[in-house]
């Protein structure tokens, strides 16, 4: 029974890791088509370095990701504070809307926002992408920060209020430092969501602003080249370096798990 369990675990991990490992190993293979090992080579990395389309798309993805996740975290922080501290008309409606936003399939967002941008004559490109990405990151930011606010000590806020702090002072001097870990997590979650999104961006992006997931998508459709292996290896390494300490994804999933 014990060895059966062990075998099962190993098989699942093999299934999870085999594709990624194969991809990384073959990014160093000195052959274009063969799936046999032809010796070590940097060829595909050199070729990638000269691919201006992919590099430009990568740059755009970082610009978009940083802009969208920073703004989403900013708006999300104010929103979470408003939802937590204030009572106002329509609060229940907004909370319900946030839940629907988290659960709605991506494609609904894609079509709805495309429709909205067309009706309001917003050109498809950077602006439309930033708005779309902020919108689908916002509920996750709010949920993360809100659950952190519930855990904070209410007496700190009351003490500050007794000592005469204004709401803006409370926000800047108490809330922000208190929420710092959750703020970092929110930013990383947003960046991951933004950099990974295909379905929504597919609908609201335009030719003026190419982003990496869509550039990879169209180049895979054109045919598989080891250059993509190199790119994927680099991205994998980069995400490991950035996300490993934060373990942001784990937090996001568990937050979602609690929500359901």
């Amino acid at each position, binding site marked *: 029974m014990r060895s059966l*369990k062990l075998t*099962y675990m190993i098989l*699942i*991990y093999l*299934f*999870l890791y085999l*594709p*990624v490992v*194969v991809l990384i190993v073959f990014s160093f293979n000195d052959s274009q088509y*063969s799936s046999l090992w032809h010796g070590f080579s940097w060829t595909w990395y050199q070729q990638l370095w000269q691919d201006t389309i992919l590099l430009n798309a990568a740059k755009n993805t970082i610009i978009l990701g940083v802009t969208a996740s920073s703004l989403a975290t900013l708006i999300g922080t*104010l*929103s979470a504070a*408003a*939802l937590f501290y*204030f009572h*106002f008309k329509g609060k229940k409606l*907004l909370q319900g*809307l*946030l839940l629907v*936003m988290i*659960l*709605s*399939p*991506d*494609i*609904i967002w894609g*079509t*709805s926002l495309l*429709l*909205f941008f067309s009706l309001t004559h917003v050109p498809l490109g950077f602006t439309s992408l930033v*708005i779309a990405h*902020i*919108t689908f990151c*916002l509920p996750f930011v709010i949920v993360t920060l809100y659950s952190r606010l519930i855990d904070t000590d209410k007496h700190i806020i009351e003490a500050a209020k007794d000592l005469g702090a204004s*709401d*803006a002072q409370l926000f800047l001097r108490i809330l922000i430092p208190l929420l710092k870990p959750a703020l970092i997590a929110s930013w990383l979650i947003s960046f*991951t969501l933004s950099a*990974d999104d*295909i*379905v929504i961006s597919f*609908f609201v992006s335009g030719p003026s602003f190419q982003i*990496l*997931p869509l550039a990879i*998508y169209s180049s*895979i*459709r054109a045919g*598989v080249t080891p250059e993509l*292996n190199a790119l*994927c290896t680099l*991205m*994998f390494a980069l*995400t490991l370096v950035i*996300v*490993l300490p934060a*373990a942001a994804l*784990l937090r996001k999933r*568990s937050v*979602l*798990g609690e929500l*359901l």
Partner: protein
Amino acid sequence: MRNDRFFKLFSISLLSLWLVIFALIPLLSTLGLSFLSVDDNHFFKWPLTLANYGQVLDPLFLHIISRSLYMSIFTTLICLLLAYPFAYILAQLPAGVKPFLLCLMIIPFWTSSIIRIYAIMALIKTRGILNTVLLHVGIIHQPLHLLFTQYAVFIGLVYNLLPYMILPIYTNIDKLDKRLIDAARDLGANRLTIFLKILLPITLPGILAGVILVFLPTMTLFFIPDLLGGAQSMLLGNLINVQMLTLRNWPLGCATSMVLTCLMFVFLGLQHYIQQHSSSTGKQAAGQR
């Protein structure tokens, strides 16, 4: 005091305006457009009509929708069957190794989903590594033609969504009071009874959460069948994509989106119902000890 009111007003109106303008209005205009008809020069034309929904219920579309449902249900089932034993074994392990193994499971998912699909393609293509190894070892004598079939789509979907099933189930099993199982065993219950009477009712909320997290995205990840599948494997997401961007029939695309939204609400309602129902049986199971 003025300062205070400004902050309150600012934060509340920022949130409300953003959500109303960029979430509520787009969603409502999708709903609205689904009742109008397509026009070559403008997006739509009046009057209100139910024709789009009639078209969605057309046998051709129903065929695609039912195929899509079949693929989503099958993917969800495979994920559940793979994830449950994994989550169970993981939860039984010593507390020291659990976070490490959990982290190890999630690391491949830090890459973007398009990269994972590309990795699957490289693995299973006709002259890919899988066929090379299998031919070399002698398990098969002809290369398997997996890529561009329905099987490839299943592999891609399961590969992309498995953690969404594992995590909620694991959270549930991990919280379970192990003494319940010991007590049942002492009282002479066999493995099947323990599973059906204790494990299943208590972990049902986790299973449901996992099913929703896998089932809903499965229908909409149009790029997976597009890259891995053949002409036969279309998901609801592919259908909406074609209607919106290729055929430019936005009212029809919106109507199909609304069908998907309705499916989502049906599922959430179902989940809510089962959760209410199971929490009482779960309490019963716990109360019997």
